[in-house]
């Protein structure tokens, strides 16, 4: 595992690049660990409170640990009318957790999100930001089983 200080340092040349650093941290840890948040604030010369404010503003950033696979269900109107509700229920049932929770084995976290710009193939979910198209409740087990 890469050291969080190295990850943050790799972004330090980017002016105002704390969000880029957060992305890089999440690519490694799936969330922003506390020590890393404090370090990022120091490196980018902003107060700790501000860094925390930034990290909690954006819905793709998380200051809490999440699963290895982050499943996001698009809930926006085009996916909504295409049956997003049924899909999310199927995901919840299959994993036996609710939206916002992580499975006990730390493998899956379910989140809701807004439109991800793949509306040619609704309803859409993403798994670690990779879109999966035309999802139906029937396809859910197969899709999730493919996550090793």
């Amino acid at each position: 595992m890469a050291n969080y200080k190295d990850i943050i340092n790799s972004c330090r040349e980017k002016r105002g690049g704390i969000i880029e650093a957060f992305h890089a941290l999440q690519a490694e840890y799936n969330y922003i660990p506390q020590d890393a948040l404090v370090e990022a604030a120091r490196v980018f010369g902003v107060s700790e409170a501000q860094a925390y404010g930034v990290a909690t503003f954006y819905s793709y950033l998380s200051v809490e640990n999440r699963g290895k696979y982050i499943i996001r269900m698009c809930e926006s109107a085009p996916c909504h009318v295409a049956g997003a509700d049924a899909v999310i229920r199927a995901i919840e049932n299959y994993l036996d957790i609710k939206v916002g929770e992580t499975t006990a084995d730390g493998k899956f976290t379910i989140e809701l999100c807004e439109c991800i710009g793949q509306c040619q193939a609704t309803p859409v979910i993403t798994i670690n930001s990779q879109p999966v198209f035309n999802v139906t409740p029937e396809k859910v087990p197969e899709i999730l089983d493919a996550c090793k």
Partner: protein
Amino acid sequence: MAEELRVLLQYADQINPESADDYVKVGGYKGLEKARSMDRKALIDEVKKSGLRGRGGAGFNAGMKWSFVPQDAPIKYVVCNLDEGEPGTYKDRIICEKNAQALLEGMAICGTAISSKQGYIYCRGEYPFVVELLKNAIKSAKASGALGDFDIEVRMGAGAYVCGEETALIESIEGHRGEPRFKPPFPGVEGLWAAPTVVNNVETFACLPNILANGAEWFAGIGATRYPGTKIVTLTGDIENATYFEVPTNVTLRDVIFTLGGGVKNGKKFKAVQVGGTSGAFIPEQNLDTQIDFDSMGSIGAALGSGAVFVLDETRDIVDVVTRISKFFEHESCGKCNPCREGTFRLREIMEKVNAGRGTTQDMDNLLLLSKVMQKAALCGLGQAAPIPIESTIKHFRYEYLRKI
């Protein structure tokens, strides 16, 4: 008249979008060459004359926007808005996936016009693969020498619709919470790191190479006179062909939906269409013969916005759809100003109540009152537009609400 007119997407899938060489082979970077040979003022005038208006929603004349940038400022920035957060919209992604070099060329043309050496593309966090594509495209363009000394950096958003608002976008590039700034000062005068900054949409930039290469008159002659050019629309909802089309701006909504779109899915009847994304008005059948250009849409109380076309068939429950939309705005409000932070929350609360059959006519009055105040008093376009879907459906589909009360 209902045919596609592919200008931006003319070479879609025929060239590798990352490759500057491919692009040059089909005539790319000629516009930039032309721009560089022109006097800055003449260049801005040419863009003004083409009538190109912003494709990001506000429809502002692009050349005019550039002309506000003070020439004497030592540092200026060109920023491309690739936040594309409006639900049902994916045309900027398509432009990047099919013709990324045109975007880069457009940004460099703008850089030439305002004498800026640095561009930023702010790409939404939902498109990490587009970020990669763009980084490669920039590498290729720099290697080919096409961009000259104009540099472009890609920054990634992190899931905030409000960051599509130009000043919130600037805040986000600066590494801050994506809260809109009050205007004035406008970005053209005081933008990124307080330097004059032009923010344009992907599609706006991508129109520029052809305008320069073919001349302002050519562009001004396409589509609607007051909003010339083509527009990429994305069709979603209950539509046969749920895909994207590039059309001249004088096609009618009816043509978009029934000719290109193949009509309502499964042979059902049409109920309503929402144009411009989730912040747009819902339009009833009787207004379908309107052209899609900015002003025509405005005349029926709607907006072209991002060019999203979201169709609902006769069986759809509008109140339910609008309730879902009200959740979107509650989720995406930045929380800076009172009317929107509290207003979007209460709109959602009341909509859920009405949708669940517990509403009263008093609730509808409250929705309308809140809608009015949010439109009048919210700080940015998000809070001002959030009530529009509610207001427009109460206007055109009141019976659907009353049925639930």
